[in-house]
């Protein structure tokens, strides 16, 4: 059917489409071109890079843990019950997806800052979130957890509650049904959602820098380190190394999730 008249490409569309492909590819190619391959290994293992990498992984994993603990129950309730304010809640959850991350950071600051009521209470217990590693993790969780909720909810909706009914007729009480049937069956979408959330948390910049700042070793994660080294020294070299690291991680996530991601969000 490739010779069918509707399959002949419109030249007027080919050009902008080609521009689109280049638009995505050129910056990435530029990045690869500027990599100082000979010095790359030594730059990768420099203490600055390793510190930022360790911090990034720490914060993003904590963010995923937070997202799992609060996001999976929310996704379950959205998918399986008729919560009265379901539409409102779903809209609220998806808001961080479109909200400028800086706004998220400022909002977190306004809610959890040291002088706010919650901040005062936390301060009383010796907990300070702003400009701390915990704060960086919370900012990343704020931005990343909608990905988890949306993916898990979609996964739960793909199946109705038939297997939970089967489990009930076999004598399983609600909690047992949840742990032994609902969660294992949702495991693929939970894994996909967690990976997406993790990738988003790892690359988080705006909310993190606004809420947690950029203190090397405490809150300066990989993306922030890449920006600071570029800003501070005007040297693109280390920034490119850090960017390459983030790009490699992103590509890895994409490859691993290629089918799952599209499947769960469809």
């Amino acid at each position: 059917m490739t010779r069918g008249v509707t399959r002949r490409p419109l030249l007027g569309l080919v050009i902008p489409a080609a521009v689109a492909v280049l638009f995505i590819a050129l910056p990435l190619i530029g990045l690869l071109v500027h990599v100082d391959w000979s010095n790359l290994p030594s730059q990768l293992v420099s203490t600055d890079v390793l510190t930022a990498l360790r911090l990034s992984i720490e914060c993003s994993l904590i963010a995923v843990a937070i997202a799992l603990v609060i996001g999976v129950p929310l996704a379950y309730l959205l998918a399986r019950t008729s919560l009265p304010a379901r539409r409102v809640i779903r809209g609220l959850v998806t808001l961080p997806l479109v909200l400028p991350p800086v706004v998220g950071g400022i909002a977190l600051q306004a809610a959890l800052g040291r002088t706010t009521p919650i901040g005062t209470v936390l301060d009383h217990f010796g907990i300070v979130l702003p400009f701390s590693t915990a704060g960086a993790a919370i900012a990343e969780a704020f931005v990343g957890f909608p990905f988890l909720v949306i993916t898990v909810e979609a996964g739960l909706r793909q199946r109705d509650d038939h297997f939970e009914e089967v489990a009930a007729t076999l004598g399983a009480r609600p909690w047992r049904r949840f742990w032994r049937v609902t969660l294992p069956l949702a495991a693929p979408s939970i894994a996909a959602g967690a990976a997406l959330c993790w990738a988003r948390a790892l690359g988080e910049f705006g909310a993190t820098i606004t809420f947690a700042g950029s203190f090397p070793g405490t809150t300066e994660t990989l993306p922030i380190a890449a920006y600071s080294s570029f800003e501070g020294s005007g040297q693109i070299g280390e920034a490119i190394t850090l960017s390459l690291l983030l790009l490699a991680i992103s590509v890895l996530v994409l490859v691993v999730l290629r089918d799952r991601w599209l499947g769960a969000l469809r």
Partner: protein
Amino acid sequence: MTLHAQVRTQLGSLRLDCDLSVESDVTVAVLGPNGAGKTTLLRVVAGLTPVDEGRVEVDGTVFEDTATRTWLTPEARRVGFVFQDHGLFPHLSVLDNVAFGLRARGVDRATAHARANEWLERVDLTRHVASRPSALSAGESQRAALARALVTDPEVLLLDEPLAAVDASGRLELRRALRRHLATFTGVRLVVTHDPLEAASLAERVVVLEDGRITQEGPFTEVSSRPRSAWIARMAGLNLLRGVVSDGTMVVDDGSGLTVATGIQGPALATIQPRAVALYRQAPEGSPRNVLRCMVTGVDPEGDRWRIRLEGPFPLVAEVTPAAAAELRLAEGGEVFAVVKATEVDVYAL
């Protein structure tokens, strides 16, 4: 043991309104067209669908009573449910599927696995203990689902279209296996089906459910020979006999013989299409034919085919054209000879 269910409930456009009593001494089939409310009835008994008004009780244990606002959760009812799609958990091995109900009721893992293994042996699935359900054939998955429902020793066993997911070639064998397992089960047995042959072969008593109401109930032969609705006349209105075949002769349960053309030996079910029953005023000559002296007990004009109910060695229904009925001067109480060719008798081994 007895199950009593009085159910009045509105489900979409369907109004389910029926009173059902099922004794544990016989298997009961709920027979009816699709959308008649058969599955809903099972779901009500299992506690998966609440009713607007009604009462479900098994031997003094009230499952549900809207009058006293009593409601037992599905997990608190001792009901085994074999779903139409079998409902095997895809993430668990066959063994863990069968052991699931025991584990849920607090049996320790080792004991649960031992008892599940016993049942898997009984349904001939020992090869598949460690398999995932996706590796099973439809027949095997049905047997696994049956074992899973029975291992917890329920008071009530509910089967929803047990053979629907099985292709025709495996159905005969599976039906036989199912009969065997149903016979060993001592609780209440309720089978839902839209297939009269399945109802007749699995159950001793048939309850016809149409459009949410019970239109008829009784032994299958009675229901099929005196259908009280157009659907049952069309679907189940075939002559159905139960007996034992040996060397081309079927001895029907009431003792009379019938020549059949089959290699089957032993207990069997025979069906004869009403239109395959020819009627004569005088006994005709020739073989291999079954000639049965009968009395006409009913004439039901129904369009261009009239249904003639006959009482002979066994009850029989014939279908003739109005012209033939007139020519034969068929009337209630009159005598006719019913002739059935041996090749027109379909025999199914039990």
